[in-house]
């Protein structure tokens, strides 16, 4: 076995990265499993689920928090598998969390902020398991198809699933970047001997700049595409007996939640998936917010508040018959959660006289800092059409219109690769004038990152472009 050292002063080879990925299927499900493997697994576990490591291979219920903000993301089971007794043979951690896309994304993002971690590449867990000799004969025999599904097929499928336009954009970027790299490489390898047209590098500069700003803009989409793919989280919240469950039932057109005149009927969260104007929405009905001595109800209220924090959009339901006092409470509640998008729903409008309805509409529209207000009666469906229009436009804003403007990101994995791509392109700019080899390295890295979405680009393809665009002699 050859022991090879590339750079003499690097000492021993660095430890492998720590990788993480959602190991269960994507989409709405009860429980999702996020797996972490590598030397930083313990750090990740400690920084996200308490400083004490759980005993090996024992499931423990812990709060899972963001290591940077300390914000609680979920409560779930954590398992700690110290090396070598794990699937990959490395230190590993599993988070069994709630299966909602928002929770999953939040946990994955939190993991990404732990130093030394990165999203796993397709098949990488299995690959590491092999490297560690962890898979035995029978497992190996059965794995062929499974791995096939995990890797190339998945990537292709993802590419195919991307709206045609999105795939087109990525391929277009990849093509531009390839050309850009080819021209830089041509300049490096041949400009001293051959006639490389003036301005080849200037053109590359412009392309890199363009691409960088395009990708950055694409990344600044506030996760619209991912929402579109996995559903917008809309939470119905408000005081008890305001008609939240009625609103849920109205929206999903079936009695999904129990409705009664008794305050505090809904104690846990009732979830249902609905289609709002063609956009997938995950609708949650929550317990009414009030002080209560009842332990079960207290927990329900806690969950409701937590859900509101995680929501993409909150429908704040208010009983319009108890308005004066309730509006204030609503405002207070609102100011607490203003970071979320919110719609104010004044329910039971059928119980108000027409004059007051008009007055309310006029008055509330003028109040600054208040979200859009809809007067609605779940009983008579009066105002429902207007409300749906408002709701739909809000959801649309959150998802972005896939038909208008630039298509948006649909997968967190793509986001990670694109972020790497942008970072690599700034390396080009940093070294552009001092060291073209290091600058080109930036473009090569950018192309590799983008290639993780669109497919690998080899040296031969770059040479093809060089020889097509420039006359290179012997």
């Amino acid at each position, binding site marked *: 076995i*050859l022991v*090879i*050292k*590339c*750079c*003499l*002063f*690097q000492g021993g*080879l*660095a430890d*492998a*990265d720590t990788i993480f990925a959602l190991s269960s299927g994507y989409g709405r499900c009860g429980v999702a499993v996020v797996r972490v493997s590598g030397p930083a697994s313990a750090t990740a576990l400690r920084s996200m689920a308490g400083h004490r490591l759980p005993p090996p291979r024992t499931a423990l219920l812990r709060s899972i928090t963001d290591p940077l903000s300390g914000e609680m993301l979920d409560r779930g089971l954590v398992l700690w598998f110290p090396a070598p007794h794990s699937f990959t043979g490395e230190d590993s951690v599993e988070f069994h969390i709630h299966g909602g896309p928002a929770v999953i994304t939040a946990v994955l993002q939190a993991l990404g902020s732990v130093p030394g971690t990165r999203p796993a590449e*397709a*098949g990488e867990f*299995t*690959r590491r398991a*092999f*490297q560690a000799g962890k898979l*035995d*004969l029978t497992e*190996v*025999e059965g*794995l*062929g198809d499974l*791995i*096939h599904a*995990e*890797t*190339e*097929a998945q*990537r292709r499928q993802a590419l195919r699933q991307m709206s045609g336009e999105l795939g087109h954009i990525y391929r277009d970027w990849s093509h531009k970047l390839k050309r850009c790299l080819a021209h830089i*490489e041509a*300049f*490096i*390898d*041949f400009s*001293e*001997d*051959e*006639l490389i047209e003036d301005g080849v590098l200037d053109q590359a500069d412009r392309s890199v700049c363009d691409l960088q700003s395009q990708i950055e803009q694409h990344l600044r989409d506030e996760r619209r595409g991912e929402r579109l793919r996995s559903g917008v989280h809309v939470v119905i919240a408000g005081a008890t007996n305001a008609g939240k469950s009625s609103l849920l039932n109205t929206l999903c057109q079936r009695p999904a939640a129990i409705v009664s005149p008794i305050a505090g009927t809904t104690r846990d969260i009732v979830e249902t998936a609905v289609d709002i104007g063609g956009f997938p929405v995950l609708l949650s009905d929550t317990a009414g917010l009030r002080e209560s001595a009842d332990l079960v109800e207290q927990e329900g209220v806690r969950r409701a508040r937590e859900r509101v924090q995680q929501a993409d959009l909150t429908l704040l339901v208010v009983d319009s018959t108890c308005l004066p006092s309730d509006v204030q409470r609503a405002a207070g509640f609102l100011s607490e959660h203003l970071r979320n998008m919110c719609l104010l729903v004044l329910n039971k409008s059928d119980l108000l006289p027409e004059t007051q309805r008009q007055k309310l509409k006029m008055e509330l529209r003028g109040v600054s800092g208040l979200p859009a207000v809809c007067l609605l009666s779940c009983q008579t469906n009066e105002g429902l059409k207007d409300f749906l229009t408002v709701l739909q436009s809000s959801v649309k804003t959150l998802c972005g219109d896939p038909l208008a403007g630039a298509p948006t990101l649909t997968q967190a994995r793509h986001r990670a690769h694109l972020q790497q791509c942008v970072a690599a392109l700034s390396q080009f700019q940093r*070294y552009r004038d*001092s*060291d*073209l*080899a*290091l*600058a*080109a*390295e930036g473009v090569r890295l950018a192309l590799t990152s983008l290639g993780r979405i669109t497919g690998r680009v*080899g*040296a*031969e393809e770059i*040479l093809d472009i*060089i*020889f*097509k665009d420039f*006359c*290179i*002699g*012997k």
Partner: protein
Amino acid sequence: MLTKKLQPVQSFLSLVSRSVGHFPRQHYDVIVVGGGHAGTEAAAAAARLGAETLLITQKIHTIGALSCNPSLGGVGKGHLVREVDALDGLCGRAGDWAGISFSILNRRKGPAVWGPRAQLDRQRYREFMQSELLSTPRLTVMEGSVEELLVTDPNPEQPGQHRVNGICLANSSHPISASSVVLTTGTFLSGSLFIGQTTSPGGRIGDAPSSAGLSHTLRERLGLKVGRLRTGTPPRIVKDSVDLSLATLNPPDSSPTPFSFMNTHTRCRPEEQLPCYLTYTTPGVERVVRESLHLNCHIQQDAKGPRYCPSIESRVLRFPGRRHQVWLEPEGLTSDLLYPQGLSMTMPPDVQLRLIREIPPLHKAEIHMPGYGVQYDFVCPTQLSPSLQVKSTQGLFLAGQINGTTGYEEAAAQGLWAGVNAGRRALSKPPVALSRTESYIGVLIDDLVSRGVTEPYRMFTSRAEFRTSLRPDNADLRLTLKGFELGCVSSSRHQKAVRVKNSLQDALAALQALSLSTTSWKRKIPDVHVSEANSNMLSGIEMLQYKDVSFQVLASIFPEVLLPFMEFSQRLKIEAVYRPHCESNKREIQRIQEEENMSLPEDIDYLSLPVSLSQEVREVLHRARPSTLGAATRLEGITPAAVVNLFNYVGLNKHNSGCQGERKRRRTLEKTKTRLR
């Protein structure tokens, strides 16, 4: 000066006497066929390793001849020269001896892509090579033409497996046996020369064609797949007939940089150097090419030309309406000729004259020798293992143009590595490979054996994934210590490399230890804009990463610590700048090395392998027969899934043999138990 000039001549005389005076032995460890750039390096490397070596060449006085351009190195190629030198090969030192015009190309593009290059004096290059080969212990040089390669019949145990036994010379009834044979036949394997409409057999003008027997053995007996490639060379021009005032002067570097890590200066003094001249083609050139196409056999046969343009004909046909560069290069200090780089052509001599006279400085030029084209056979290099041994024939190694490459440096690099492995085989040592993560030689060989060639393969820096780590400046650190372990590096070079390595390490440690606050650095080096964001401590290495901070500047501030390392100032600057990038390469390098260490069995039948692979992937693997998982990964059309499946298979096989043994043992045990009851 006089003694220097005499030295090679004396050696040359004793070389002749040696080959004449002693009848060759009947057996050698290694026989090298061919005395070009690959053959000389192969013979010298095998002999350095300790193998009794015989170099057979048609004419001793053409050993070290530069058949084409009188220059060495360049971007990518210079990397190869530095690596060959780091492994104690000849071409770097030969370049320093024969160079008459030195320059570092790409000087402004970063040290990773600097291209050390020199114009050579043809005579001096031959002198050096010939005297060097003669003074190499254990190396015999002999004139002769190899008639036949002696190979065993296929081994019945391993179908298709031959072993080489030696060679048979033309006009000789005595075979010469050898454990290893290295073929470096260049363009001579079924070579044909083309000028205008004339075709004649041969590999180089003025030399006899090689025997058809060799080609026959390779193709018919060994069943090797052979392809055909073309190359060409421009006419040589009488210097006095050229009006150089109409061309742009391109002066060499004022201070020549030697190729060799062992040399501190070149033989040619800075002021003795000769310049090159640059001029351009005109529309008249394009016209002459088009008008004479019907007279140009070589170009008419251009069925599937390379992507780049080796001849002026293909340049103007592929990129019409442009002007193309032509370099007028000196052929030697005292030579009367100029070499017009970029004007390789194969039309009839009178048309060649018409063509060159369309170029302003050449309007009255005389041609000393016309340009011509060569077509020759090459052996598809995917039939070789990374040691450059033919997979189906033990002991047979191929290097240079026979493997489909072009260029002196590419040939020298392969020659050296084939020589090392041929020598190792003769000494009963296992083959060795260089990784593409550690050297351009590794990139070159890996590209050849795992991807094959469709056009003459030439080195470019863009082929090296880890370009920022594989720099010309650190070739010694990458390869010399390893070469010493393999036995192809002398102890004096090894000692020097160890000293350099330790000094650089000490200097970098000293720089790292110089930790000052940003404010202190600003006070000490006011001219440099130290980033305010870095309010913490900065080490000397981090300061050296600033564009305008040189090691000299730091040494003037901390003379007691840094002055001892002044001789390495440039290397230290480069190390400091590239360090973070080499660090970030490490993970990828490690992954590739792991995959390269997982060898795929040579006899694997990909078409029926009981593993989930698509038909497309199976066919790619079947054709390419990669020797390692790493090589498989880089094949075109190989999906990540296929790699993982192959990965499984390799692991599975290991488990399998172990399990079968275990099962058998258990079964035997059970049987024994039953019988005892």
